[in-house]
Every structure is written in structure tokens, then in C-alpha cells.
């Protein structure tokens, strides 16, 4: 129990003491209205043991980044009480409409309602209870209660629909899909000609070659198309999350990861996700909408956090990905992170690095002067050296200035890597 009127007591005590010290009755008489105020408050205060409330909470999604919270608290006790409901906004929420607290007098069986609309960026929000303060009509005696009213709400990262990328991993999974599997079979692209095997469909016979070799039959082969296993690695270390304004660089990486996952899953591939930040969060490979939902859930919860144990990408546990995985890493790169990539190569993973450009991102928040120019040049040199070490390993790197669309850059990087491989 506590009270908003608690600080009135020093006034009462002050008046009584002043009267006693000055041996005058008037100050003591002056304390009388204050004492009457207290006394009436205490007399009318609801007894804590008889307070019974039941609260419910519903959170309704209104758009991509917001919701309406509706709370109802019903007085299940026998007394009439004054009830103040308070539901403070969680970090990352902005109040759009309504108010987060309300005051009502409730007779037995009546209900107080609180409703507000909030907006927020990507995030996962959980409520356990609602704060209720029951009091007498004057608010002299207040009893604080936490009424269970649990709810969860997620704002998932914004998705952009990418067209499928022409990736050509070394190894694929033996299930029909859309990724060229580097072997003959059923597909659309011509792969080669071989001797006819009993059971080959007649429409696959290479009639020209068969005509040139009497007594022998030849069949055309097409490149098998299968699904691939994609491993997405999202760098959620705080030191790589530059902040300029409301959003940080990590928000762009999270959105890119969500869009890539959606695109690969739409193609029927198997996708896994590893978030490298406070801890290692790994989502096992999976297919379809359920996997997309799991990935979006993990991404909406992901927050860049500092953890000295995971200071460098070098500590990434690669054994979590199967040997057939095509690894896509989303990281702005911190100094020394290039050491991961020789490990990737040594394990035989085909990989692609998408690196949101931290220098370009930070530059927008800095003044355009000589010092900034020099610092930017130095940082760019350092970054170029690091990226140079990665490209030497034949790992395509997408240097992404986050205000530009990502998918043409990835497409171009993959195409260039194919050309290099063919040479």
C-alpha cells in the first residue's frame, strides 16, 4: 500500500509541532481539515484482502508496424473501488492514439477498459500483467496489484520480394527444385548426349546422332534441377550496428535476411539461419511457410548485443551447417572478421558475403568537412583491404550501400563469380 497523499503528513506534523512549540492552538486546529481528509480516506479504503480483479488483454495488429492494445479489468470483489490501470509502453513503442492509463470507479461486477494504439519498429513484445492501483475515492490509501494479462506481439522485419538468384552451388539436395545441379537428368537446360538406356523416353532421343551411328541409339540429357540448402548468417554484434537516427545498420541486415529467406523458401529450398550476437541462435534447416514463420520470428526478436565471447566472426560455429550448404553471410564486417572466410573455404562451403557499407551509412550522420573526409578515406582503405582478402578466396562480396536495392547487386555478384569460375 502507498499513497499519493503520503507527503501531506509532513504538513500535518509540521502544523502540530509548530503549535506545540509555540504553545498556540491555532496551528493544531489548522491541521484538522488535513486530518479529516486522511481519516475519511482511510475509512473508505478498500480492504486489500477483499480486492478481486480479473484482467484480459488483446493485442490486434493494424498494419506492418503497429497494434491496438485493449485491456479490460473487471471488479470481482464486493466493494466499489477506484481503480487506476497503467500499462506503460515497452522500449521501442511509440504511442499513436489513446492513453496508457485510465482511472475508473468500479462497482462489483463492472469493468474498466483501457485502449491505446502504438507504432513500433521490428521487435517482439511480451506482456505478463497490467498494473492496477485500487484506492479510496480520495486516493489516500492505494493498493498496487499486478493483474495477470499476458499477450505477445511481433513486428516482423519488412519483406521485399526478390526475384530468384541464379546461384549454382557445388552440391544440391536430391529433390526436384530450381537450382541447376551440375549433373544430367531431368531439366530444361541441355547437358549432354549419352547412349540410350532402356526406359529413356522416346522424345529424348537424339535423332541426328542416332542417324549418324546406325545400330545405336542416343539420348539427350538435360541438367538436373534440384533444391539447395542455404545457410544464412546474420551478424548481430553490437559493434557492427552503427546507428544514424532511429534505425541502425542492423535493421537493414535483418530486412535483407528476411527477404532472402523468403525468396529461397519460395523457390522450395531448405534454409537455415544463424544469428551471431549475444548468443548463437541457430534455426535448423527447413522448408516452406513454417520455416519462413520461424525465421521471421527469430529475426523480429534479434537485437544487436555486445558479447565479448563472440567478438569476432572467426568464432562462428560452421559445423552447424551441412556440407551441402550455400552460405550467405550478412555482416558489415569488423576489423579481423576476414579470418572466417579461409575457414569457410577450407570446409568447402560455397559462400557469398553481403556487407552493408558502414562507412557510407555513418557518413550521412557526420558533418561534411575535411576531418570526416580523411577519416572516411582511412576507413575505406581498411575496409577495402579486408574485402580484398575475402575476394582473393573466390568468395563473391556484395558491398551494399543500404539506400540502394539489394537484389540487383547480389545478382551481379553471382553472375561475376560464375564468369570467373568459367575462366
Amino acid at each position, binding site marked *: *500500500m502507498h499513497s499519493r497523499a503520503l507527503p501531506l503528513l509532513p504538513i500535518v506534523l509540521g502544523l*502540530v509541532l509548530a503549535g506545540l512549540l509555540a504553545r498556540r492552538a491555532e496551528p493544531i486546529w*489548522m491541521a484538522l481539515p488535513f486530518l479529516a*481528509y486522511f481519516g475519511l480516506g*482511510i475509512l473508505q479504503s478498500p480492504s486489500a484482502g477483499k480486492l478481486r480483479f480479473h484482467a484480459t488483454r488483446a493485442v490486434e495488429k493494424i498494419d506492418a508496424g503497429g497494434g491496438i492494445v485493449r485491456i479490460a479489468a473487471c471488479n470481482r470483489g464486493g466493494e466499489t473501488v477506484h481503480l*487506476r490501470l497503467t500499462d506503460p509502453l515497452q522500449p521501442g513503442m511509440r504511442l499513436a492514439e489513446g492513453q496508457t492509463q485510465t*482511472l475508473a*470507479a468500479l462497482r462489483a461486477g463492472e469493468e*474498466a477498459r483501457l485502449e491505446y494504439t502504438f507504432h513500433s519498429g521490428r521487435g517482439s513484445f511480451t506482456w505478463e500483467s497490467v498494473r492496477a492501483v485500487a484506492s479510496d475515492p480520495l486516493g489516500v490509501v492505494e493498493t498496487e496489484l499486478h493483474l495477470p494479462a499476458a499477450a505477445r506481439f511481433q513486428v516482423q522485419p519488412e519483406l521485399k520480394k526478390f526475384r530468384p538468384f541464379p546461384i549454382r552451388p557445388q552440391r544440391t539436395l536430391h529433390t526436384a527444385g530450381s537450382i541447376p545441379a551440375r549433373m544430367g537428368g531431368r531439366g530444361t537446360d541441355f547437358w549432354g548426349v549419352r547412349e540410350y538406356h532402356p526406359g529413356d523416353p522416346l522424345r529424348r532421343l537424339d535423332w541426328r546422332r542416332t542417324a549418324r551411328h546406325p545400330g545405336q541409339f542416343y539420348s539427350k540429357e538435360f541438367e538436373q534441377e534440384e533444391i539447395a540448402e542455404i545457410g544464412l548468417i546474420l551478424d548481430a554484434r553490437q559493434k557492427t550496428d552503427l546507428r544514424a537516427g532511429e534505425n541502425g545498420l542492423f535493421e537493414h541486415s535483418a530486412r535483407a535476411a528476411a527477404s532472402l529467406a523468403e525468396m529461397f523458401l519460395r523457390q522450395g529450398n531448405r534454409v537455415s539461419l544463424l544469428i551471431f550476437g549475444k548468443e548463437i541462435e541457430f534455426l535448423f534447416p527447413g522448408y516452406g511457410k513454417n520455416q519462413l514463420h520461424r525465421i521471421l520470428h527469430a529475426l523480429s526478436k534479434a537485437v544487436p548485443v555486445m558479447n565479448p565471447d563472440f567478438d569476432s566472426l572467426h568464432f562462428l560455429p560452421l559445423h552447424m551447417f551441412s556440407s551441402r550448404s550455400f552460405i550467405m553471410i550478412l555482416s558489415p564486417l569488423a576489423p579481423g572478421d576476414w579470418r572466417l572466410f579461409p575457414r569457410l573455404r577450407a570446409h568447402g562451403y560455397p559462400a557469398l558475403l553481403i556487407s552493408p557499407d558502414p562507412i557510407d551509412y555513418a557518413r550521412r550522420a557526420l558533418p561534411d568537412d575535411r576531418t570526416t573526409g580523411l577519416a572516411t578515406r582511412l576507413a575505406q582503405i581498411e575496409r577495402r583491404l579486408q574485402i580484398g582478402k575475402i575476394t582473393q578466396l573466390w568468395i563473391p562480396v556484395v558491398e551494399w550501400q543500404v539506400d540502394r536495392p539489394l537484389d540487383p547487386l547480389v545478382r551481379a555478384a553471382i553472375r561475376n563469380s560464375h564468369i570467373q569460375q568459367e575462366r
Partner: protein
Amino acid sequence: MLRRKILKLVCPLACTACLAAGYAAAGIWTALPVVFLALSAWLLAALGRSGSFSWAALILSAGLAAGGLFASVSFPLMMLAATLALAGWDIVLFTNAPVPDPPDGSTRLLSERHYRSLITALGLGLPAALIGPSIRIQIPFGWMILLGIFALLSLEGVWRRLKG
């Protein structure tokens, strides 16, 4: 809602008017700047700027009223000022409390119960305080000491109950 808005201005204004009249009648002009300060605090509190303004206004007004008693300012005026300060403080805090807009049934009940309690408290306290000094009861010194101890213990009990 309109009644609340009127009351939250009327009570503080009447309180400062009583203080100003009392001090002016006693010829203590030096107190008037402090009264003006209290009035400013009341106005800021009534505008809903911050909860601390209402506290400041109440403490200033109650302090001025108590000070007036020692400076031989009219007792009824100071008593009335202190009571109005308490009422003003209560109404300002109540008006700034978050209530549903437009008001529903529970809001009306809330206002009714609150005003009824406030009027009862002040209606009991003020007449008793005004009439009290004119009543002369001779009690032995020992009884007076006992009553003093009882009052202090009661206040301490109230404090403990409020602190929970």
C-alpha cells in the same frame, strides 16, 4: 468536466485571495510576493505542467496560512486559505488524472464519489477547526500529555499504514 475545470481554478484563486486579503488587512505587505509566487504555482499546476507544481503550491499556501497565524493575521481567513489549498490541490491532481474521454458511467461515478468524499472531509474539518478555538475546555496537564502521545501514535500509525 466543466465543473472540474471551474473548481480547479476557483479553489486556488479563492485560496490566494484569502491569503492576500489576510496579509493585506494585517498590513504585512512583504508577504504578498510569496502569495503571488503561490498563485503562479497554482496556475502552473492547473495548466497540468507538472505534478510537482501542485505540491509546491500546496506547501507554499499552507506555509503562508500557518505563518499568518503567528503574524496575527485573521484566523478564519488563514483557516479558509489552508482548507481551500487542500481542496485545490486535490482537485488539480484529480483533474489531471487520466480519465476516459468522452466520460462513461464509471467516470461519472468516480467524480461523484470523489467530490462527495472531499466535501465530507472539508465539511467536517473546516467547521470543527473554525469553532474549535472558541471552545474552552480545562483538562489536567497529565491528560493533555496523554492526548498528545495518543495523537502522535495515531499519526505514526497512519504513516505506517500508508507506507504499507
